[in-house]
């Protein structure tokens, strides 16, 4: 099991047929994005159709997990039992994802150090044997 940052009580994601593969890849510690099989547009989060060319062809590609902070908030009230406070929630622009972003948490950083544009990298947190959540920490050096 990975290093833990959050308690078991954090809400688990709910999936449907379209998004389940994303979570199955995550359980294997692979951050995968969909690319349109016709025009190459990145589809993140997964979707049934390319919103640009309306093709339903898609393939999965792994991305590096590097990115930068697009915006963030420091949360001082818990929604889950045992949630560590403050909790940093951020939007991360992902490298190699055609400008697409992902919502996540920042871990291993003091809130005062966080700024928009800060380079970050992926860190997986295993919540259970079948559920891993991608979180991010600053790139050191």
């Amino acid at each position: 099991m990975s290093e833990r940052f959050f308690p078991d009580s954090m809400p688990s994601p709910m999936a449907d047929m379209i998004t389940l593969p994303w979570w199955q890849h995550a359980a294997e510690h692979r951050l995968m994005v969909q690319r349109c099989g016709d025009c190459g547009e990145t589809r993140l989060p997964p979707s049934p159709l390319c919103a640009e060319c309306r093709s339903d062809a898609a393939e999965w590609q792994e991305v590096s997990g590097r990115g930068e902070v697009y915006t963030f908030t420091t949360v001082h009230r818990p929604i889950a039992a045992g949630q560590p406070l403050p909790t940093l929630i951020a939007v991360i622009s992902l490298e190699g994802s055609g400008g697409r972003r992902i919502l996540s948490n920042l871990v291993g950083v003091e809130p005062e150090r966080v700024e928009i544009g800060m380079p970050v990298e992926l860190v997986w947190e295993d919540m259970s044997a079948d559920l891993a959540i991608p979180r991010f920490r600053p790139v050191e050096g």
Partner: protein
Amino acid sequence: MSRRAHIVGVGESQYARWGKITDVPEHTLAVQAILRAVADAGLDMDDVDGLASFAEDRNEAVFLAAELGLPALRYASMVWLPGGGGGCAAVGNAAMAVETGQAEVVVVYRGLCQGQFFRFGTGGMDASAPVDPVTPTVNQAQTPMLASMGFSMPYGMLMAAAAYALPTRRHMHLYGTRPEALGQIAVTFREHASRNPRAVMGHKPMTLDDYLASPMIADPHRLFDCCLESDGACAVVVTTEERARDLKAGRVEILGSEQGTPKGYAFGPFTNANVADELYATGGCEEMAGRLWGKTGLGPADVDVAQIYDHFTGCVLMQIEDYGFCKRGEGGPFIESGALAWKTGSLPTNTHGGSLSEAYIHGLNHVVEGVRALRGESSSPVDGAEVCLVTSGACVPSSAVLLGRR
């Protein structure tokens, strides 16, 4: 004779802090609000043949129609938006119904008792109850909304104060918007509430220092950046100009209504990290605002008074820019100049105190106040006001109505 849609009556139940109304169920509060609005219009309940609401209102129209003894329910609708963005859209639906002859008299209502169900601020979670992780499986998310929340909730993003902090933070980064601008919004609306007998916070004055000293909830949102959580209900009555002419109450014309969800927006920054870059630090209403001005032949300079949906202060600031009251990025200085203040400002806004200080009835109380403002019945009256802009929740799929009195 014209079928142009007018609002002819407004009404509300008691407004109270969440959890304070324990002896009357939410749907009975909705019934009270509807009865008062119809009485205010000078109509009889037997005249009502339509009901419209929004935001997953628990109080289904068919049951209200039965309780109210309506002779026939010819029109009922619910706006397909989960958030508070649909209030003005519900008024727009009512207007379409009467203008097309689908109905003659439509009551738009919203009942909301957060104390009887759950406080929005908790995200529906119980932070005192430990739970175990759940493995994702197929068909777990029974709606696209829930599947989309799969990409926000594991990070603790279930609290609106945190969600709308994200675009506000980015606005501050891009344009140098100061916390004092957000504070000015909270302080101004509280001052307006001080004259409003319905306002839950009417007796609690607030200074900018009080605002800056209030606890941080989700940076940059302090406690006083966040709207109230309330128990209450309100309603407005929509009918045709032909019908309105015979009524005793002052009528207000619905000059135009619009709904708007920009490309790729879905539920906005709450669950969607991929709102387009040019839209991210906005209320997402600029396109819709352009259509509203275009169809009415009016513009921001024609607005005498505004009721702007204020779930969070930053969302007010970004809407002010969306609707063109100032340029993009200049909302901070515009607001810090005192523009939103009653009497002295160029754009007196939320003359009832808004959701920050009157009550949080999902913004339908802003439509009620828009009508009062044009009838000269507001507790903060704007002399000679002829045009009022009312908006619904921004940074989510939104809507707006432009009201007029000639």
